[in-house]
């Protein structure tokens, strides 16, 4: 249940595109696809923080744009900030803006939908204003190799293997340790074959990917290895998943999304957690923005994309996050983001016009929302 039907859909899509276009599964296209997906994934993770509580932030796309611009502008020769300071500034600004939306929603008791819609207009205006004035209207080209490397840099093939093996080993250790300690405590344990199946699947996928990434994909010079961006997504995914599944903080996020009144009566400071969710959403959208601007190679008023926020919602919801609050995981936008990237990338390869790509992405999102709503109905009927 849960994520499995979505994974099946992903496999079907991959097979379809590979049959229709022989270059789909080529190493350079897969790498390209992953880098595309990473922006959707971070945006989707940002939105999961909000959707879990039954909130939404429609300004995350512009927040990402703002973050990328700040990073590009302050690492530019004119300002010359060290990359880490500029990145930090970008993330702090996005976190603060998210917090501001959250405070408005909570203090004035307004729907987050409206507050962040207004917020997205404000951010769009501010961003365009900045981009039109900075560097004599030339936008913000990237001059920092760190910013470029977010999407262009690769691990060496050796480090790619080390990373992949480490991920498999850590996953196996965590699963087996958890099973052991439950067994030792005399608690029910799921059948062992499930752990085996999960680990085999994980190993197969990671080894295949490592092999793909380590195949030379350069036409003139040798390009190989896993993009830096992949371990970075894994890092954030690991931290966020840990927070959601293993800490009180995460537990309260789910509780508030499931039944706000019950959470309040259990003594959880509901409004404070709602503001935290907006801040985490902003922070994560800020990360997405760094990758976004890195991929674009710079940011100007002509490269802004108003549909970015829809990818945030789509990545989260296609993966299985509920719009009604209380249901979702950080792995969902990973799958959702990859599906979005597969659709975008594959449709272009089989020469569907870009206007049709919008239509098809929209239809997929609509389908995901329908599934979400049906799942909710059947759950209510069960009671």
């Amino acid at each position, binding site marked *: 249940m849960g994520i499995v039907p979505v994974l099946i859909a992903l496999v079907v899509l991959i097979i379809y595109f590979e049959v229709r276009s022989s270059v789909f599964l080529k190493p350079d296209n897969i790498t390209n696809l992953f880098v595309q997906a990473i922006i959707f994934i971070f945006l989707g993770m940002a939105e999961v923080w909000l959707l879990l509580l039954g909130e939404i932030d429609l300004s995350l796309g512009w927040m990402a744009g703002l973050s990328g611009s700040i990073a590009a502008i302050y690492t530019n020769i004119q300002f010359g900030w060290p990359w880490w300071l500029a990145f930090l500034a970008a993330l702090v600004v996005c976190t603060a803006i998210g917090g501001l939306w959250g405070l408005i929603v909570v203090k004035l008791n307004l729907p987050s939908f409206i507050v962040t819609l207004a917020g997205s207009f404000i951010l769009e205006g501010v961003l365009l204003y900045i981009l039109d004035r900075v560097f004599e209207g030339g936008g913000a080209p990237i001059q920092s190799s760190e910013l470029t490397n977010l999407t262009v840099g690769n691990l060496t093939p050796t480090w790619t293997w080390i990373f992949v093996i480490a991920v498999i080993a850590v996953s196996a250790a965590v699963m087996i340790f958890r099973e052991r*300690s*439950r067994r030792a*405590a*005399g*608690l*029910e344990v799921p059948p062992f074959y499930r752990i085996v199946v999960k680990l085999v699947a994980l190993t197969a996928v990671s080894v295949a990917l490592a092999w793909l990434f380590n195949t030379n994909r350069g036409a003139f010079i040798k390009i190989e290895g896993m993009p830096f961006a992949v371990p970075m997504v894994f890092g954030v995914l690991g931290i966020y998943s840990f927070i959601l599944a*293993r*800490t*009180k903080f995460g*537990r309260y996020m*789910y*509780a508030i*999304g*499931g*039944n706000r*009144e*019950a*959470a309040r*009566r*259990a*003594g*959880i400071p509901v409004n404070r957690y709602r503001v935290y969710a907006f801040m985490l959403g902003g922070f994560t959208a800020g990360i997405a923005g760094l990758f976004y601007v890195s991929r674009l190679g710079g940011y100007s008023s002509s490269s802004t994309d108003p549909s970015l926020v829809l990818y945030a919602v789509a990545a989260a919801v296609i993966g299985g996050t509920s719009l009604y609050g*209380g*249901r979702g995981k950080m792995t969902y936008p990973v799958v959702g983001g990859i599906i979005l990237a597969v659709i975008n990338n594959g449709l272009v390869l089989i020469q569907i016009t870009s206007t049709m790509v919008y239509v098809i992405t929209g239809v997929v999102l609509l389908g995901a929302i329908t599934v979400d709503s049906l799942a909710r109905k059947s*759950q209510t009927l*069960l*009671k």
Partner: protein
Amino acid sequence: MSESATGEPVNAGAVADSDMGVDPSMLLSLRGVTKHFGAVQALRQVDLDVPAGQVTALVGDNGAGKSTLIKAVAGIWEPSSGTMYWQGKKIDIHTPKEAALLGIATVYQDLALCDNLDIVANMYLGFESTKKHVLDEITMEKRTQQTLKDLSVTTVHSVRQLVASLSGGQRQSVAVARAVMRDAKLVIMDEPTAALGVSQTAQVLALIKTLASRGIGVLVISHNLNDVFEVADRVAVMYLGTLVSSGPVANYTMSSTVELITTGVVSRAA
């Protein structure tokens, strides 16, 4: 509250010797508890004793003031006047938290459960055990299992089930077990069987008896006199904000109770 203009609360706190009238073996005693909502007098001079280890059924018609009374005990609102005693000692309950700290747990009709969380998470909501800031799932799961077992709640297959998948009676059981696990001395339940079918009702009534047998005081509001006569050790009848009669269940018959509920008096000489 600014009811001092009515003159009533002024003497309420001042009656020092009213402590003498309270039986210290009682878990909870109310004396002269009154509650106004503007012009509406929802409670008039209510005196009620709730012993430990027994089931006290609070009955009365719609609007009689039952919910208003338990909300005063639960700390949702303060009475306009009157005194409450907890194990013989005079107390003031200002907030639900204070009530909880005393050991008073209230299970409202809506149960306040999170459907999207499993039984363990619901049982521990707001009180999670942690080890180095990480949720200690094993401890929580074991204690949840133990608590449910102690209360003879056997119909639940796995404590890792989502609450959304539980039946009405099981949900009620989880809400009660949560209170018991936090060492509640008095469990108050508002219409626990109102929405339940026959077998589910039996489940909840059995749970109520188990609570009492474990020394916990139970104050249960019910509309269903069959249920009341099945589980209650004591009966308290409210009529238009007044507690018109209370005592051991042996003093009541089905018909005398119906009469008290509908008219506030019994015509037959007792």
